[in-house]
C-alpha cells in the first residue's frame, strides 16, 4: 500500500512537471561572437525564420553574444541552463575551439540538445556526447576551389593566365582548407601560372601593401586569388591607385556587404557568402528535432552529425539572385528536410 502510494505520488509529481514544462515556452538560444557582426546576426535571423515554423507562442529566440570573450560564452550558457532547465535548445558558434568541451559538458549534465558550427578541437566530436546533435562548418576546400575556377574562367583566354595568391593566416584552418581547394583547381588548370604567394594575415592593410609591391615587380597579372573579402578590398584599393581595377580579376570569400557591392561594380570577380541563415536555421532545427524526439543522436548517421555546408557563390551572374534571396528578404528553408544543408560529410579519424 505504501509502495503504491509512493508510486502514485511520484507519478503525480512527474505529471505536474510535464504539464508545467508543457506550459513553459521553449528557449531557442543562439550563442554568437557579437551582435555587431553582420555574419553572426544571420544565424539569429535563421533561427527566427525557423521559429516561425513552430506553433505560435510555444518558443522564443534568445541571443547570447559573448563579445569575443571565452568565459562569458560559457558562463552565459551555464546561467541559461540553470534557469531554464531542459526547456532549452542551443546553437553555438564557439568563440575559440577549446570552449566547446566546457559547453558540451554543461549541456550533457543539463540534458539539453545543441548544435555547433565552425570550431572544434581535433578529436572532440558529437559522437562522444549524447546531447550534442551535430557539428557543421563551411567547406573551405570547396570555397577555395570554386573561387579559383571562377577566376580562371574569367580570364581573356579562359583557363590560361598568371595569378598571385594572397593567403590568410598560415596554419589557420580556414586558410589551409581554402588553399587546398586552390591547389586542386591548379591541378585541373595547367594553363595557370602562380607568380607568387604571400600571407596577408586576413588584414586589409597588409594585403594592400603586398599588392602595391607586387605591382612593382609583375606587370602582366591576370588575377589575384585572395582568401578573404577583407584582403580583397585592400587589393582592389591598390589596383585602383594604378588604374588597374577590373583589368586584374580578384576573388574574395565571406560575402561581407562591401565585397558583394564590389562584385556589383566589377571590382571583384566573385566571393562566397557563408549563408549564416541556413547554418543558424538548421542548427536549431536539428536540436529541436532531437528535443521533440523526432530524431535521436544515438541513431543518426555520421554524415548527419558532422557535415559541411555550402555557401552561395556570388558573381556577376548570380548577384541579382543573391540580392533577391538574401538581401531583400530572409531566405526560408524547408526545416523538415534535415538533409538539405549537408554538402558532404566531415572526415573524422
Amino acid at each position: 500500500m505504501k509502495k503504491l502510494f509512493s508510486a502514485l505520488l511520484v507519478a503525480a509529481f512527474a505529471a505536474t512537471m510535464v504539464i508545467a514544462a508543457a506550459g513553459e515556452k521553449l528557449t531557442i538560444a543562439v550563442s554568437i561572437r557579437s551582435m555587431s557582426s553582420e555574419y553572426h546576426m544571420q544565424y539569429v535571423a535563421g533561427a527566427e525564420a525557423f521559429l516561425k515554423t513552430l506553433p505560435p507562442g510555444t518558443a522564443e529566440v534568445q541571443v547570447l553574444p559573448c563579445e569575443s570573450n571565452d568565459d562569458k560564452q560559457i558562463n552565459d550558457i551555464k546561467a541559461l541552463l540553470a534557469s531554464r532547465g531542459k526547456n532549452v535548445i542551443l546553437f553555438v558558434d564557439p568563440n575559440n575551439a577549446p570552449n566547446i568541451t566546457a559547453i558540451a559538458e554543461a549541456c550533457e549534465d543539463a540534458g539539453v540538445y545543441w548544435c555547433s558550427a565552425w570550431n572544434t578541437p581535433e578529436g572532440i566530436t558529437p559522437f562522444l556526447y549524447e546531447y550534442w546533435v551535430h557539428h557543421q562548418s563551411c567547406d573551405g576546400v570547396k570555397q577555395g576551389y570554386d573561387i579559383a575556377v571562377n577566376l580562371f574562367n574569367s580570364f581573356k583566354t579562359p583557363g590560361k593566365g598568371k595569378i598571385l595568391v594572397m593567403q590568410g593566416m598560415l596554419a589557420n584552418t580556414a586558410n589551409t582548407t581554402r588553399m587546398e581547394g586552390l591547389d586542386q583547381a591548379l591541378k585541373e588548370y595547367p594553363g595557370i601560372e602562380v607568380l607568387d604567394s604571400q600571407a596577408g594575415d586576413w588584414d586589409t592593410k597588409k594585403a594592400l601593401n603586398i599588392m602595391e609591391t607586387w605591382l612593382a615587380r609583375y606587370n602582366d597579372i591576370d588575377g589575384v586569388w585572395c582568401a578573404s573579402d577583407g584582403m580583397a578590398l585592400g587589393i582592389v584599393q591598390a589596383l585602383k591607385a594604378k588604374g588597374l581595377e577590373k583589368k586584374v580579376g580578384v576573388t574574395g570569400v565571406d560575402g561581407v556587404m562591401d565585397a558583394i557591392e564590389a562584385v556589383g561594380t566589377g571590382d571583384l570577380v566573385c566571393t562566397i557568402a557563408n549563408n549564416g541563415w541556413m547554418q543558424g536555421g538548421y542548427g536549431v532545427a536539428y536540436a529541436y528535432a532531437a528535443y521533440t524526439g523526432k530524431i535521436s543522436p544515438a541513431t543518426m548517421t555520421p554524415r548527419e552529425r558532422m557535415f559541411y555546408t555550402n555557401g552561395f557563390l556570388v558573381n556577376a551572374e548570380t548577384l541579382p539572385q543573391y540580392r533577391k534571396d538574401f538581401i531583400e528578404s530572409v531566405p526560408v528553408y524547408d526545416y523538415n528536410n534535415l538533409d538539405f544543408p549537408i554538402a558532404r560529410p566531415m572526415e573524422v579519424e
Partner: protein
Amino acid sequence: MDKHGYSSPIAEEFAQEMVRRNKVDRIVAMAPVGILLFLVALLSIVADGFFTGYNIQTILGQLSIPLVMSMGLTFVILLAGTDLSGEGLGGFVGSIVILMVLNTKTDLDMGLWAILIAVAAGLVVGIISGVIHVYGKMPSFIVTYAMSSIMAGFAVLSYRGQPAMSKYEFFITLSRGRFLGIPSLTWIALAIFAISYVLQERTRFGEYVFAIGDNERVAKNTGININRIKILVFAWSGLCIGVAGVLGAIRIGRGEVVIGKDTVFPAITAVVVGGTPLTGGRGGVVHSLVGALIVTIIYNGLILLGVSTYIQAAIQGVIIITAVALSVKRGRKVVTK
C-alpha cells in the same frame, strides 16, 4: 699610492675618453645612412623590379605611415619613454574619420572638419596618456598600452562591426594623386617631418626634450617644467598617430580598427634603427627618417624577393634587437668610469 696622484691622469683619461666617444658617436650617427645606402645597392642588384620608378613611388607611399608615426615616437623615445597607443588609437581615428566623411554607413558628410576632429581625437588621447603617465606616476609603456586597448574597443564600437567604406572624393584623389612623382600622402608625411624638425631644432621645446632625455634631474634643477614638456610630447605623439590614422584610412578607403594594426612596431624600429636609443637623450627626427626608409625598404625588398611575411616579421625583430643591443652597449660605456 697617494690618491692625489690620480687627479691628473684621470683628467687626461677623461679628455681622451671624450674624444674617443665623440668619434664613436659620429660613426654611429652615420651608420644608419650607410646601412640605407647598402640596402638600396644590394636590393637593386638582387631584387627584380626594386630600382624602378614605379617601385620608388611605391616605397615612398608605403613610407608615409611609418614616417608620421615615428615622428611622434621620436620625441617620446628621446625622453626615454615609449608610446604603444598607436595600434588602437590609429585604428580609432581611422575608423571615425571615415564615419564622418561621405561614406556608406552614416549621413554625416562633414568633409574637412572630419579630418580635424579625428586628428584632434588623437591629440586629446595623447594628452590623456601624458597626464596619466606624469601625474599617475605610471610607466609610459603600460599607460599607452592600456590606452591602445581602450581605443581599439571604441574603434569597433564606432562602426558596430561592419566598417564603412569611404565615398569621399577628396580622399580618393589623395590616395591616387601624385605631385612631382611623389604620392600625395607622402607629401603630407614629409610636412609632418618638416614640422617635427622645426620643433626639434628651432624651439625651446625641442631643446628641453633633449635635456630631459639626457638627464632628468639636471633638467629639473635648471628650472624646466618637466611635467609640462612630457605631456606636450605625448600630445604631439597622439597628434602624429591621429594623422597616421587618417592617412591609413585614406589608403585603404575603409574605416576599420585594422588601420592601426602593426604600425607601432615598425615605427619603434624606425626610431631605434635610425639611431635614437631607447634610453633617450640622443638622436632625433632626421635619424628616424633614415630609420623609416630602412624599415620600409626592407619590407618592400623582401616581398619583391618572394620571402614569406613571417620571415619578414622575424627579420624585423632581429633588426630591432641588434639596434637596441648596439645602443645599450654604447650607453654602458658612458656610465662606466
